[in-house]
């Protein structure tokens, strides 16, 4: 058992953003976090990659409470792709990827030959090797996203946390990225908006609504028309994929129902 969200709660200005979220990501398992806007997905992930300190409960890795661990130690085990895409300075792609080694290096210690090879392989895997000498600020959104994933891989984490990794990616790269996640042998916690991709890529899906976990299990159990109506306010048909049998969600423009609260 790798990563555990142990009754995780986050309260900001008196409002509970995440409430008693309990979730486990086993070794080599891909767990997808889905839910409507404002359901607390990103907030939960921020606690895992240490950008936010939970106000209740804990995030544990191998039984150790993250908040009692130096940031450097957790950064050697958990890598993240955040929604914060943009660097301030025009680093080259190669430099950005190499910064993934920062938690493993002291001061300005140079990368070893093994680490440079690691960077090269990660860039090749994310199909950005040909961009190695380009400045990151001149890249397209999708190219930059792939560079940032390469940086996270170079961190050699046990757990990979990704917040909307398919943003900006074309279909080819969405599929490439998610199949890479499946085969990476890492524990992966990922938020996704595309439910069909989530169904294909994830071993388990966790559905968040207003900061609380409302469903958890294999995609086939979780993705039901009833639950999606409840959580997302959409009338959908769920059909098995004709080739793989994975549940696929179908909807059209008349599918949105009115929801209470601000999720209309």
């Amino acid at each position: 058992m790798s990563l555990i969200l142990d009754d995780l709660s986050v309260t900001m200005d008196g409002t509970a953003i995440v409430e008693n979220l309990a979730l486990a990501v086993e070794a080599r398992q891909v767990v997808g976090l889905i839910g409507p806007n404002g359901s607390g997905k990103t907030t939960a992930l921020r606690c895992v990659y240490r950008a936010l300190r939970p106000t209740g409960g804990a995030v544990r890795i191998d039984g150790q409470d993250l908040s009692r661990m130096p940031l450097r130690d957790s950064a050697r085990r958990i890598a993240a792709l955040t929604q914060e895409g943009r660097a301030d300075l025009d680093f080259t792609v190669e430099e950005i990827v190499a910064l993934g080694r920062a938690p493993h290096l002291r001061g300005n210690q140079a990368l070893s030959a093994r680490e440079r090879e690691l960077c090269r392989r990660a860039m090749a895997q994310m199909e950005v090797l040909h961009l190695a000498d380009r400045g990151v600020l001149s890249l397209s959104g999708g190219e930059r996203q792939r560079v940032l994933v390469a940086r996270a891989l170079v961190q050699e984490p046990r757990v990979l946390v990704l917040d909307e990794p398919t943003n900006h990616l074309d279909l080819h790269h969405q599929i490439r990225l998610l199949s890479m996640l499946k085969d990476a042998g890492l524990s992966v916690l990922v938020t996704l908006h595309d439910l069909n991709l989530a169904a294909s890529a994830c071993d388990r899906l966790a559905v968040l609504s207003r900061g609380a976990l409302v469903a958890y299990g294999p995609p086939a159990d979780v993705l039901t028309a009833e639950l999606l109506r409840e959580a997302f306010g959409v009338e959908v048909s769920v059909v098995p994929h004709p080739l793989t049998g994975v549940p696929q969600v179908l909807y059209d423009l008349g599918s949105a129902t009115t929801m209470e609260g601000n999720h209309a």
Partner: protein
Amino acid sequence: MRSLPEAAVPDADDPPPATPSATPPAMPLIVALLAGVLAVSVLLAIGLGAATVPPGETLRFLWAAVTGGSITAGDVTAYQIIWQVRAPRVLLAVLVGAGLSVVGVAIQAMVRNALADPFVLGVSSGASAGAVLVSVTGALTAFGIYAVSAGAFLGALLVSALVYLASRGAGGLTPLRLVLTGVAMAFGFQAVMSLIVYFVPDGESTSTVLFWSMGGFGAATWGALPVVAVVTVVTAVALRRFARGLDVLALGDETSASLGVDTVRFRRGLFVLTSLATGAMVAVSGAIGFVGLVMPHLVRLWVGAAHVRVLTVAPLAGAIFMVWADLVARTLVAPRELPLGVITALVGVPVFVVLLRRRGYLFGGR
């Protein structure tokens, strides 16, 4: 248009794995080159001025001064100009040019703003107000001839402390709040200064204000050099040691956390270090603008964004620039001396505008 099967294997048309080409300019070469240029610049600048001394003579006088050698009676005047007046002045320009450049690099990374410079957090206005207050009231007599400098340093520290306290929040010092608080404090202290000048309308306080807001090395003495030297060297070395941390910080606070950098602690450390360094430099030379803004950008254009390279080159480049700017300031309309800030602004502003308009140079977006 690509056909489908091709699209499925895009690796096929990627260029072959490149050798790490376009390597950044070789650092040892650049450092050697700049060090040489700096040494020659210093020698020339010490020799040039109202009374011009040839470089060979300059070298002989400096050698005599350092080794305690003897000079002839006829050389005494030239020797005194070289050793007592110009040498400390040029060396101070070296130190402050280097210091402002590295502090500018660090502050731009700390507040994540391309327009930040060492004075963006209000330090210069605090220093001016402190200096004016001391020169008007005659306080701090314990510091003797350094009383006004001490007042400037204390004023700078006071502003820094106020900016720190006012912009501290639950998430540490947030970049935007730092800049906004700094700008607000600058206005506040400028008002204080204007008030003092208004109520004490003697020429003394007005010229003090002018000196501290434009800067200059006219007051350089050997006595003040060691302190500035220690502060500048410590700051430059320390910041360079944190180069990778500065790289990570430029990726944003969220990413920094995921890469193991504690942004709250790091930013606090940077704030203290850069405030002390800026305060010390302002206390001896006033607020010399544009060096700390333009040099970081110029150096990044040359050697790329990685801080380990920027912080190696910036002190040398800043020192060279400052030596020549000071030389121009004291020789252009001799015997009068132009405020140094005028020269750095005349050079810095056009350079900066051209830089920002240049295609392909991007800081924080297109």
